[in-house]
């Protein structure tokens, strides 16, 4: 028995791998669901179908997807260019803080000025939080993975520190900020729904990023810099500069997501404002194949699962953490299946002896390529040939 690299990737194989991964995810997660005392089939229906069957449910899905679109896009553009920003969590949180600043200190402003100001502050805040890792990467070549990761707990501490200190609620004394004035509320899209204009901003960003990545020379350069930095550098693409800019843009998008969340949903800063959206952004970006459209679809799917998980925890008493288990299992099975599809299993008997066995090569063979998989970010899904 032998595992060989496939010479060609047939067209049906990738979709088949995704279907296989989804089936395996359902199978693997059935165990814990049963452990929680629920029927897996009923639970899957709750997770995937129930939220889509009612208007409120659909609204909740869109609401839950909105921050994931932001963080997913943020991670996707950074991973595209080969900058592994795993700090979207911290950038999102600092975005919420920065958007809260004008809301607390310039609370009288009318919405027309206040909202752009707060959103801009959020984006700036996210970019500022991304600045240090990006700067260290560019000027001291310090691995961005570590520094972005380390700044996540620091950002959470910043939020908690502000809420326990100067921004403590002046009426209740709880560690939540005061509620924002009317000018700092992202209006609902439809009356009576909680879906807010943040979703529109997210969709516009998806459109913009999608166009840039797919149809512009810049998009091509980013892809080249990410997938094969040496070749890109050789052909005159300023890889380090591109990484630097994408790092800051990534932080800005995550920060904008934080601003949208705090202005559109919470209407006050709370310590639980993020709920792991930044880390989930890595899942969204990877499953979305680092493409804008993919990010949108996966964000909607994970939003659906998140709402379903809330629902299932109330009706079926399956803890909400099941949502995390399902989405992370899905991530791992999908990347595993997509990687596995590049190999085929050959069960071979003794080869027919038509000619004399060749003598062993006396010396090592010519240098072979280091790996079957280039280390570029797009290889996360193993979609290259």
């Amino acid at each position, binding site marked *: 028995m032998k595992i060989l690299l496939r010479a060609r990737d047939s067209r049906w194989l990738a979709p088949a791998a995704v279907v296989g991964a989804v089936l395996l995810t359902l199978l693997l997660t059935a165990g814990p669901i049963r452990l929680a005392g629920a029927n897996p089939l009923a639970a899957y229906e709750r997770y995937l179908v129930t939220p889509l069957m009612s208007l409120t449910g659909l609204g909740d899905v869109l609401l839950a997807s909105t921050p994931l679109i932001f963080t997913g896009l943020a991670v996707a553009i950074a991973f595209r260019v080969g900058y592994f920003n795993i700090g979207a969590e911290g950038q999102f949180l600092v975005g919420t803080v920065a958007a809260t600043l004008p809301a607390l200190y310039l609370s009288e402003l009318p919405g027309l000025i206040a909202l752009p100001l707060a959103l801009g502050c959020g984006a700036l805040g996210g970019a500022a939080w991304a600045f240090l890792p990006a700067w260290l990467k560019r000027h001291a070549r*310090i691995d961005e993975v570590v520094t972005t990761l380390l700044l996540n707990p620091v950002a959470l501490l910043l939020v908690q520190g502000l809420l326990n200190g100067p921004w403590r609620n002046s009426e209740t004394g709880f560690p939540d900020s005061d509620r924002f004035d009317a000018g700092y509320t992202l209006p609902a899209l439809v009356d009576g729904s909680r879906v807010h204009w943040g979703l529109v901003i997210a969709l516009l960003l998806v459109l913009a990023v999608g166009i840039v990545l797919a149809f512009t020379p810049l998009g091509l350069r980013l892809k080249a810099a990410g997938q094969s930095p040496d070749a890109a550098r050789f052909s005159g693409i300023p890889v380090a500069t591109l990484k630097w800019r994408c790092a800051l843009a990534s932080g800005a998008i995550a920060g904008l997501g934080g601003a949208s969340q705090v202005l559109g949903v919470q209407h006050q800063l709370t310590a639980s404002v993020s709920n792991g959206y930044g880390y989930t952004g890595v899942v969204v970006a990877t499953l979305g194949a680092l493409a804008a459209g993919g990010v949108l679809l996966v964000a909607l799917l994970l939003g659906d699962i998140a709402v379903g998980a809330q629902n299932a925890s109330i009706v079926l008493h399956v803890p909400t953490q099941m949502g995390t288990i399902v989405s992370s299992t899905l991530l791992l099975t999908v990347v595993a299946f997509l990687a596995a599809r590049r190999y085929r299993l050959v069960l071979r008997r003794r080869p027919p002896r038509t000619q004399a066995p060749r003598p062993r090569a006396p010396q090592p063979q010519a240098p072979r390529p280091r790996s079957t998989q280039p280390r570029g970010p797009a290889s996360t899904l193993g979609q290259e040939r």
Partner: protein
Amino acid sequence: MDFPLIAVLAATLTIATPLVWAGLGAIINERAGILNLGIEGTMYAGAFVGFLTASASGSATLGLLAAIIAGALAGSLMGLLTVTLGVNQHVAGIGTTLLLIGACDFSNRILFSAGSQAVTAKFDRLFAGTGFFAQYPMTYLAFLVAAPALWWVLRSSGFGLRLRAVGENPEAADAAGIPVAGTRYTALVLGGALMGTGGAFLTLSLLGSFTLDIVSGRGWICIALIIFGRWKVWPVVAGALLFGFADALQLQLAITPQFGAVPNELLIAFPYLVVIGALAIWGRGVRYPGAYLVPYRRA
């Protein structure tokens, strides 16, 4: 003001212990060429499984064993993803961390209905009452056994040489007859076991109970310490002590009246900032293992 130096130094050792265990595990992984971002989740799983087993069986030793097994299993999951399948290591690691934390929190919710958190059997400090030397057994083991042992293994043993060969140049290692995949699996299982041990220290020695978010970024600290320590055992231990000292210092300052005005959260963030600062000063221009992040497959 009289500063309780001995107490702070003793706390330094205690705080550094989980980082030393998990850091040693991360050294083994990264020397074999694998960045294991599953470390945070693996520590979390070690903490939770250790706690669970100890509270069910009443034996802290059994809990520790279970944590080691859980860590080894988490390591083999990383192996399946990154060695056998060659998945991107950042994605596999973050996915593993998310999955393990989700699974532990889920089980925690099911087994212990919210609020009623059981207290478990735990290890006691040795030499109680001797101040600085009153440390947990796992602390002594980390500094006096595990770290020297790994240092020797990496430097002089056949396994250590194979491990480094596989991480530096898998083609050459393969040509020399070293099983690349097997060595990497061993590294991940062994490293995962050490990370699980580090997590179990938090529940089975330090706290005696399990709380959500108990690891709170210590895994990421370890990844930073590896770079800071350039993949060498003693510098990484020194980095863990540096973090431990910063953390012990902030804990001491938090109860010192003169520092009452400083926000507590700023003090808690202080050791993280120290690590980033240390990385910025001493982490420049480091040489990564040759096959870092690169999956290996015979052409």
